[in-house]
Every structure is written in structure tokens, then in C-alpha cells.
């Protein structure tokens, strides 16, 4: 978080001769063309030079042949949210080249494939034509390999134009292709070929450049889904059931590779885990529920459509009080919507999921680091509370590369919750599966195979002894206990993170991947409109008391989120002190792209004007 960053330096303006370490690069290609390596090398090399950087992949919902944009942002202040404006364009895709160029602000720069003749389009941009095919032919004899190598050439070009250390690029490339010497050599040649061409034929005429910094030392670059998978690995998950869906798949798939590497029994070579690709999401959650019921740490991962299908089972788990960890890597709705666009659109649906009276615990990671930590929290909370826990990530957080502090090893042992054993059984006079013996609404559970007393698991048709009952009073007391248990959850979930500005009458509430844009927007508001703001970042549902306190301390609260229906604001309206509701306002972003600071700033300023 930028609160950990040095005091803000004035931002360079276009006017100034040079813009260092503060610009965005967009590479426009087609998917399946193998540009991924080139883009990652670009990203990593800047990162290795110590400049805070972020990369966002804007990809289509197919496998090959459609437009893809990869945007890299370098920023000395550590802003890693998406930047709305593109400063430096690499136009490789004939289909979109024209639009890509036309949408640029004046004064920006364009590297393009010479045959596209883009320079004729505008006179207020700096153009760098590059004969990619010619260069690639020189460095790569095998025709069929050229398509792939071609991309590495623009890395070489940018190395020269933006003064990105070629050595760093080579290093980044090596770490990716280390195992394939032939490919490595070829790509290195392409890199150099590109740089050489630029040095000989292109004269630098744009202000953008990178210069070494020391702002990334000790940091890592990681995707949220990989971070979450590591979290599950260290949470000691033993049963995983999942069904493929974008943008969730990379979580279980990373988990598979970690587990196969680190969770095979040393002596026997056998697996200390079971991972099942189920036939669908209903079966996935069913397996998780069965496994948790039998005492295992179990999880599934999906996206919105899967959550919809899981709804019935979620309700059963809530009422039967069975742990279940469910990752929802959010994308925009509905099922044949845009699976490759990001959103925070499942907040209400998960919090209130299933028919009947239900309320669920949500964890809201805002960074790769929290994807790791909260995965562990999710299993602990789910077992301690004996209820499903949703971890709400999203496509932006889950599938893009994020700069992060290295993750810290969990010191706290696994919290397995109230599992009945011989000693405990003795202390309880007359165990009952649904008896609230501790006054926290959380009963003691008996797990099959432990020799503890058996019971028959059902939904809400039971009394405190888990006997079948249709008695009105049994039903009411069970429902009231469940509500009480949810209040207990309130005391256990991660508290929000508050940045209080003493002189601020305006507060901002945000969560998840919106965090980074909010951080940046607050600086913009302060520096450009000198509007001081306090900031509360939600990290969980149910809401903790800090939230009402925060609202109380400010006249106007802007709830920033990435959906159309102001879903978190709605939850706040439902659950907050009614007298505070009038203070709540909304900043919404829902075009499928990751939220950016400028949009937030503009929206808040506009609403502040109206007053």
C-alpha cells in the first residue's frame, strides 16, 4: 500500500523534456501469437531495475486470433492500478492498429509494424516504424519459428527507446526459457536484433524513459490466483474439487503443481491430498461438503456461474453447519457474458446466497499478499465457525501480475475448530450436535471415523440433539442460534484497514482489487484538488464495528466498487446504523476493465461539487 511508500514527489508533466519511470506501455497483438513471453520479459526487466510496475492482460474469450492488449505501467511512486491513458503503444495487430492509434492522447509514442503505415494517421504523435519481418528473418532462419520470435523484437526495440537495460531483459528471458537452450538463444538474438535496429534506425523523439530505482527490492511479482493457491498449500488443504472456469482455473491448476511438488509423502511417494476435477460445480461443492463433514480441509474454486449452481448446496452447508471454502474469482455476469472481463459483481449474491434465511462470511483480499493470507484465514474461519466461507477475488487480482511483499509463513497452527474428542465428550454432560454449550452459537461437531457419538445430518429439520423435528420452537431456536453464530463471526473476521486523515470530512470505503486505484485517487484528490480523505478498506463480511465508527467520523462516505448495482453499498445500507445511511454515496466502475484512479477522482469531485 502506498502508505508504505515515500512522500509523494511532484508528477512530471508532458511539457517537461523527459518523463521518467511514470508511464504506461500498451502492446496490442492477437492472442495465441505467443506475445506472452515478450510481455513478461518487458514487465520483469523493468521490475528488476527497481521500478514499481504492474502488468494487465486484456484478453478475449477465445483461444487464438482475437485482439489482445497487454498494458504495463511503470511508476516511481508505486502506483500499480491500471492507468487510463496509454503513453507508449506497440501496435502489432493490423485489425486494431487504427483504433489503437486514434485513441491516444496527443504527444504519445507509437512503435508499429512498418507495413501498417500508421504514421499517416496522425501528426501529433511520435511514430517509430519497424520492419519486424525483415529483422526476424535475419535472426531466425526457420520460417515457422518466426511468428513466435517476432514478439521478442519489440522488447529489443523498447530496450533501446526506453533505455531498459538489455542485460535485465536477457536475465528475465533466461529465467523463463532456461530449460530450452535452443529457444533461449533464438529469443536472445531477437532481443539484440531489435535493439540493434532501433539504435541504428530510430531516433528517440518521445519523453518516456526508465531509470534504475530501488523501489522493488525484496518484492515479488505474482498472480493473485497463484498466491491463493500457495495459501491453500500452506493451509494444509487435503481435498480439492473443482470445475474449470475462467478466471478461476489457474487457481486450482497452480495448486495442482504446488501439491504435486510439495505434498507427496516423502517415504511412500503417495499423495497427502486428493484433487478431483468434478463433472460440474454442483458436484464440486458436494464433494467439498462431504469431505468437510468427514473432517478434511476441503475447498473449491469457481466464478459467478459456478456460484449460481452451488446455491442449493451452500444453503445446506449453512443450515447443516458444515465447513466449506469457496473461492469466487469474479468476472462480469452472466454465463455467456464476458468471461474475460473483471468485476466485483457477486457481493450480494454470495453474502445472501441460497433460498431461505442465510448469511455468509466473505473474505475480500485486496492484494496478492492477502490472497495468500486470507486463503489460510478462510480454512480456519470455516472450520471454527462450521459454515461456508467465500473468498471473493476477481479476474484482475487473480490473473494479472502484481508486485507484492513476500508472503509471511503462517505462525498460527491450523485452527480446526470444535471437533469432538474423548476428553471434550467427558466434559460435556450429554453432547448434542447443535447445542450451544459455549454461548457463541458454535456447537461441537462429531466426525465419522473418530469413534465419537454418531448423529444424522440434515438441514433445518432438527433440534439441538440433531433429532428430526418439525416443532416450531426447535426451528426458531436453531435459526436464532445461527444468527448468533454470525455475530460471533463478526468478532473473528479480518478487521478493515483504516487510514484516518484528521482533517478529512470525506471518507472512502473500498475493497478488493479497487484498493490500488483508491490509494492513487486519494493522492490525486489531495494534490490536485486538495481534498483530504480518510480511507477504510473492507476486508470481510459480516461488518465489524469499526465500519459504523468510520462512517460516523465523516460527513460523506464514498463507497467505491466495480459493479453497477452498488452491491457493497447495499449491504452497508442493510446492516449499518440507520442514522448513518444518509451519508453513504457511491462510486461505480463496471465496464469490465480494472478500475483506474482517474475515474474515481472524477466521480468524487463531481459529487462533491453538487455537494
Amino acid at each position, binding site marked *: 500500500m502506498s502508505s508504505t511508500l515515500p512522500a509523494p514527489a511532484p508528477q512530471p508533466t508532458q511539457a517537461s523534456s523527459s518523463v521518467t519511470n511514470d508511464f504506461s506501455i500498451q502492446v496490442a497483438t492477437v492472442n495465441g501469437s505467443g506475445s506472452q513471453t515478450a510481455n513478461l520479459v518487458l514487465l520483469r526487466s523493468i521490475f528488476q531495475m527497481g521500478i514499481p510496475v504492474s502488468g494487465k492482460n486484456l484478453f478475449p474469450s477465445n483461444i487464438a486470433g482475437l485482439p489482445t492488449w497487454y498494458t504495463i505501467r511503470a511508476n516511481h511512486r508505486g502506483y500499480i492500478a491500471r492507468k487510463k491513458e496509454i503513453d507508449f503503444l506497440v501496435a502489432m495487430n493490423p485489425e486494431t492498429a487504427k483504433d489503437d492509434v486514434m485513441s491516444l492522447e496527443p504527444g504519445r509514442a507509437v512503435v508499429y509494424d512498418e507495413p501498417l503505415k500508421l504514421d499517416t494517421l496522425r501528426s501529433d504523435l511520435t511514430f517509430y516504424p519497424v520492419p519486424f519481418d525483415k529483422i526476424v528473418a535475419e535472426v531466425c532462419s526457420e520460417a515457422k519459428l518466426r511468428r513466435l520470435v517476432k514478439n521478442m523484437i519489440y522488447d529489443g526495440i523498447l530496450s533501446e527507446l526506453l533505455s531498459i537495460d538489455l542485460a535485465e531483459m536477457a536475465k528475465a528471458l533466461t529465467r523463463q526459457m532456461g530449460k530450452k537452450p535452443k529457444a533461449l538463444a533464438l529469443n536472445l538474438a531477437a532481443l539484440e536484433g531489435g535493439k540493434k535496429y532501433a539504435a541504428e534506425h530510430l531516433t528517440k523523439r518521445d519523453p518516456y524513459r526508465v531509470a534504475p530505482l530501488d523501489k522493488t527490492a525484496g518484492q515479488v511479482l*505474482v498472480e493473485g490466483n497463484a498466491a491463493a493457491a500457495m495459501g491453500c498449500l500452506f493451509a494444509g488443504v487435503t481435498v480439492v474439487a473443482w470445475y474449470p472456469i475462467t478466471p478461476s482455473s489457474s487457481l486450482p491448476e497452480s495448486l495442482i503443481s504446488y501439491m504435486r511438488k510439495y505434498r507427496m509423502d516423502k517415504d511412500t511417494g503417495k499423495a497427502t491430498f486428493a484433487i478431483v476435477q468434478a463433472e460440474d460445480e454442483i458436484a464440486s461443492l458436494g464433494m467439498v461438503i462431504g469431505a468437510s463433514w468427514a473432517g478434511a480441509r476441503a475447498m473449491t474454486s469457481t466464478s459467478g456461474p459456478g456460484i449460481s449452481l452451488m446455491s442449493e448446496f451452500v444453503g445446506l452447508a449453512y443450515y447443516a453447519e458444515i465447513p466449506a471454502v469457496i473461492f469466487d474469482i469474479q468476472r462480469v455476469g452472466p454465463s455467456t457474458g464476458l468471461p474475460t472481463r473483471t468485476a466485483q459483481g457477486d457481493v450480494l449474491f454470495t453474502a445472501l446466497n441460497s433460498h431461505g434465511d442465510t448469511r455468509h462470511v466473505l473474505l475480500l483480499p485486496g492484494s496478492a499478499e492477502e490472497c495468500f493470507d486470507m486463503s489460510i484465514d478462510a480454512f480456519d474461519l470455516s472450520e471454527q465457525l462450521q459454515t461456508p466461507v467465500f473468498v471473493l477475488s476477481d479476474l484482475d487480482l487473480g490473473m494479472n501480475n502484481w508486485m507484492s511483499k513476500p508472503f509471511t509463513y503462517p505462525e498460527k497452527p491450523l485452527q480446526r475448530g470444535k471437533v469432538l474428542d474423548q476428553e471434550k465428550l467427558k466434559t460435556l454432560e450429554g453432547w448434542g450436535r447443535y447445542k450451544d454449550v459455549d454461548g457463541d452459537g458454535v456447537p461441537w461437531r462429531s466426525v465419522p471415523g473418530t469413534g465419537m457419538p454418531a448423529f444424522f445430518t440434515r438441514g433445518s429439520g432438527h433440534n439441538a440433539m440433531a433429532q*428430526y423435528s418439525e416443532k416450531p420452537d426447535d426451528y426458531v431456536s436453531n435459526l436464532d442460534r445461527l444468527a448468533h453464530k454470525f455475530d460471533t463471526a463478526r468478532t473473528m473476521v479480518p478487521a478493515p484497514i483504516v487510514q484516518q486523515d484528521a482533517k478529512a470530512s470525506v471518507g472512502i470505503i473500498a475493497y478488493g482489487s479497487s484498493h490500488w486505484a483508491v490509494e492513487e485517487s486519494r493522492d490525486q484528490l489531495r494534490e490536485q484538488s486538495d481534498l483530504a480523505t480518510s480511507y477504510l478498506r473492507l476486508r470481510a463480511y459480516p461488518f465489524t464495528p469499526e465500519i459504523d465508527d468510520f462512517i460516523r467520523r465523516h460527513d460523506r462516505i464514498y463507497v467505491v466498487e466495480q459493479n453497477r448495482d452498488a452491491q457493497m453499498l447495499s449491504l452497508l445500507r442493510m446492516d449499518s446504523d440507520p442514522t448513518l445511511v444518509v451519508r453513504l454515496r457511491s462510486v461505480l466502475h463496471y465496464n469490465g476493465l480494472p478500475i483506474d484512479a482517474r475515474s474515481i477522482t472524477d466521480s468524487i469531485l463531481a459529487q462533491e461539487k453538487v455537494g
Partner: protein
Amino acid sequence: MSADAPAPVKKTNRLNLDVSSYRGGKTTLCAGCGHNAISERIIDAFFEMGVDPKRVIKLSGIGCSSKSPAYFLNPSHGFNSVHGRMPSVATGAMLANQSLLAIGVSGDGDSGAIGIGQFVHSMRRNLPLIYIIEDNGCYGLTKGQFSPTADLGSKAKNGVVNDLPPIDMCALAVELGASFVARSFSGDKKQLLSILKAAIAHKGTSMIDVISPCVTFNDHEGSTKSYAYVKDHEEPLGEISFIPFFEDISVEYEPGTSTQVKMHDGSHLTLRKITEDYNPSDKITAMRLLHESLRRGEFATGVIYIEPDKDDFITTLNLVPEPLAFLPQDRVRPSKAVLEQLMDGLS
């Protein structure tokens, strides 16, 4: 001991438990419901096989049939899950603790309609599970609508006629790779008991379709699921007897007239043949038998297909022998060094 000499003779089984440890709660099903008879046989089978009830888990979906796990094996944990999803819940539970013995009870609606997807995929996985379909051709609990196993042309109380051909759950199970497929009738004490005992000894999925008349909604004239009809039209594959590995098998041995199937745990299943050579280990034969008896409006009952040595799902997944659920922290949370290694890879 064989099924011919029924349990009651013995007072206690090899665990010195008497049959009361295998009983369940009082049934809330209709008097005369086939499902109740099946619960009785399940009690006998687990008692006679001397299975520790604390090792057993009972799972079900929703339906009258799915209520029945509450009526047997009280000392076992039970799970009445949601409609049609028993297989996934059973799968999860067995993955969590392979030392358990799982019996899943479902209905023809629960497994044939809403649950057919999970049925198909659980058959495919050959999970260690005794999968019982209490098949009455209707939705009992919702008052008698047709299920996918209802007879073509049969008429419900409200006059609606069923216009779709029935699904043969046994044929599906065979096609999909279940390693033990049988059909029986709730009223056939002896056969059902032997089949259940063999299923307990079997390693993978044992799918048993038990015709179980719904006396309230589907016991009428012309219903092939009615008690009367099944009594007349069942075509037993021949006598079946089962000898648990811990019992002397010689008594049962009658070479020539019977096929013996050696079960995974060393026990023996004997099919004494009355009809033409029937080979329960050949899929095509099994399919032909099912199709032909269907055409004749008959039910072939008995063990229809068996593949005793097929890998079950636990084996396929190469799991450590201990229950995953109870692995200690040091076996499931890698060391700090591992995290550092992972972080280095990303920095």
C-alpha cells in the same frame, strides 16, 4: 454361514455385537413400503458380515428412500443431503477418510432424474460405495409422480399416463464402468441379503437397483413396480449365495453347476445357474441379458455384472493409506523453507 441359514440363529456376530447395534430409528415410511424391507436386509447384512457400525457412513439424497438411512445402523454417522447429490457427498467423504465404509441410499427419482449426472460420473469413478437405488418407479415423497424408471404407458392416480420409456439404471451402470451391478427385489429376502453381503465385500462401487414397490402410489394394476407384478415377472439369474472370507467356503462348493467369483477380500460369491451359461464378468452378455429381459417385460435379478479387481477411485488417486482428514499439521503444511523457495522463484 450362508444366506440359507439366516442371522437370527446367531445371537452375536464376530464383533460380539448383537443385531440391535445395527438397527435404526423407528421408520416414518408407510406400512408395507418396500423401502422398509430393504432397511431390514441392510441391518441383517451388516450384522452378519460383522462390520463395525462406527466405521460405516450412511448417505442419501432426498425422498422416502433417502429417509431410510435413519432407520438402520443408528451407531453410524448419517447424511441426508440434497436431492440427487448423494454421490458427490459420498465421494468427498470417502476421499477424506478411505477407512470408512460408505452406503448410499437413493431413489429412482433421486438418481434417475435430477441426480442422473452424478450417478453417471460416480459409476465412472468406481468409488468405494454401496449405491442402493430403492426403485419404485415414482416419486413417493412428492405423492406419486412418474420417475424416469416408470413403465411406459402406466397410469398415475390423477389419470396422467407416462409416455416415456424407462431408464434401466443397471444397464447404465454396466455401460459406465461400475464394477459390481446387481438387481433385486425388496421382497426377496434371501437374494437381497446375499447381494448386500457381496457388496460389502466388494472393493469399488456396488450399484444395486432394488425394485421396491410404493404401496401408496405405485402398487396398482399394470405397474411393473407393484409387488404382485415383480413376484410374477422376476427372472432370477439363479441362486446366489455369498460366503464371507472368514467363513468356511467348502460347504457351499458345488462345482460344475456354479460360477464362483472371488471377491477382493478373499470371500466368494457363488452364482448357481439355472438358465443358459451366464457370465457376470462380460459387459456384452450383461447388456444383452438386460435388454432381452426388458423386452420380455421381465426383471433379471441377481448379480448382473462384476469386475472384482478393478481399481477403485482411492487407488487411482494414489492416496496415502491414512485418512486425509486426520493427517497432522506437519504432513499437510510444508516448511518455511518451501515458502522461501517459492518466494525466490518470484522475486
